[in-house]
């Protein structure tokens, strides 16, 4: 039987009086990569923000691995998720500190932080960038630091919001390779928003498609 990473029940989300998301039911299996498709304004980023537990639905419920989200478990849920924004925000500090911050706030000791950061930065091909100030990086490098930050916390779930858009070819292919590897590992759940499904369809067979905030098609067998 497939384990469900997420289970959404009668979800709706409003910005002011405007409903931007309305999903009756959606189950997302764990251990697979799923693409979220749809035109601009279809609610993809809003859905990802709900799945990251940064935003809360106006109505309905979301369960993570069978446990319903609420005030008490929101923080522990967030800590199981790595979120990569389309345009990442890097703190006003060096690259190492940017990656290390999330580890330190989980109480990891300095030696482990050092080695985990070094490994995460090596994965995104940024070894030697530790002392560079984050604000001096190019867009592609900044996105890779943000990816290293997400990888370092070793989450169960990765949420990627068009991570490779507006990036150079090298960064795009590196990020795609990491998504492929995460998918192949079978122990990570990945949701990735994309505008161009044809680009990633070969390694992301599952998709859900949104339009005007509603789920219009999906090939997920949950």
């Amino acid at each position, binding site marked *: 039987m497939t384990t469900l990473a997420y289970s959404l029940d009668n979800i709706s989300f409003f910005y002011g009086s405007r409903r931007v998301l309305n999903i009756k039911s959606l189950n997302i299996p764990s251990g697979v990569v799923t693409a979220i498709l749809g035109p601009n304004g279809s609610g993809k980023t809003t859905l990802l*923000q709900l799945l*990251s*537990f*940064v935003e809360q639905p106006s109505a309905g419920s979301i369960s993570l691995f069978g446990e319903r989200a609420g005030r008490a478990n929101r*923080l522990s849920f*967030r*800590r199981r*998720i*790595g*979120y990569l*924004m389309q*345009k*990442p*925000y890097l*703190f*006003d*500090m060096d690259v190492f500190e940017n990656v290390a*911050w*999330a580890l330190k*706030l*989980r109480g990891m000791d300095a030696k482990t932080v050092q080695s985990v950061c070094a490994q995460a930065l090596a994965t995104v091909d940024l070894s030697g960038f530790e002392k560079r100030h984050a604000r001096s990086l190019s867009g592609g490098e900044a996105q890779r630091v943000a990816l290293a*930050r997400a990888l370092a*916390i070793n989450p169960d779930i990765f949420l990627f919001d068009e991570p490779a858009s507006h990036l150079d070819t090298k960064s795009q292919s590196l990020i795609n390779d990491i998504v492929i590897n995460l998918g192949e590992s079978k122990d990570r759940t990945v949701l990735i928003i994309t505008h161009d499904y044809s680009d990633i369809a070969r390694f992301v067979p599952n998709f859900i498609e949104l339009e005007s905030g509603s789920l219009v098609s999906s090939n997920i067998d949950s």
Partner: protein
Amino acid sequence: MNFIFQGIIDGLALIAHFDTEVYFIVWTSLKVSLIAVTGAAILGIPIGVLIALNNFVLKRTLIISLNTAMAFPTVVLGLIFYAFLSRKGPLGDYGLLFTPFGMEIGLFFLATPIVINLALSAVQALDSRLFTTCRTLGANAWQEFRMILREARFAITAAAALAFGRVISEVGIAMMLGGNIKGFTRTMTTAIALETSKGEFELGMALGMALLIVALFVNLALYALQKNS
């Protein structure tokens, strides 16, 4: 013009010769101002951040009130606290009027709206992705608050410096709540007013220059802090 130049020269001589009276007045001003601004920062910065991060009914009204409080005439503030601290007032039994602590209370209420308002503006000016990033990286409210302070540190430090500038240079509260008592509550501004009215222009000028030097050092410290960061 000679009168002014002579005043400046005599004033510099008083500073250079470490005149006890001048230095005690400078010390009193610095002490009450620093205590008031530290208290205002401890209370005002978290309040400013909380107001910036939360939406609630009457938020706009609160911000307008804070803006108004920033421009509150110090004499009126001094008058209000005089009424509270004077013997007939509700806090009269504590004997706080004409004491450094009484001045610190008044100055604290002068500095707090400035710190709240500028901390609020500093946080509102931050990139909203900062808050999302903190939460998605698993920060709890306290860890997020600390990161927000870190990211807004220059603007928040400038807020504290501005509040310090306002507090150390005001005269109304220091005069009304301190009483300008020699060797006890006399500050630079009250002493300048008094000494000049007595015709002691040199002492007034020395204290005026000391006030400017203090302002210069505060700004230099702020600049150094920003440069080192």
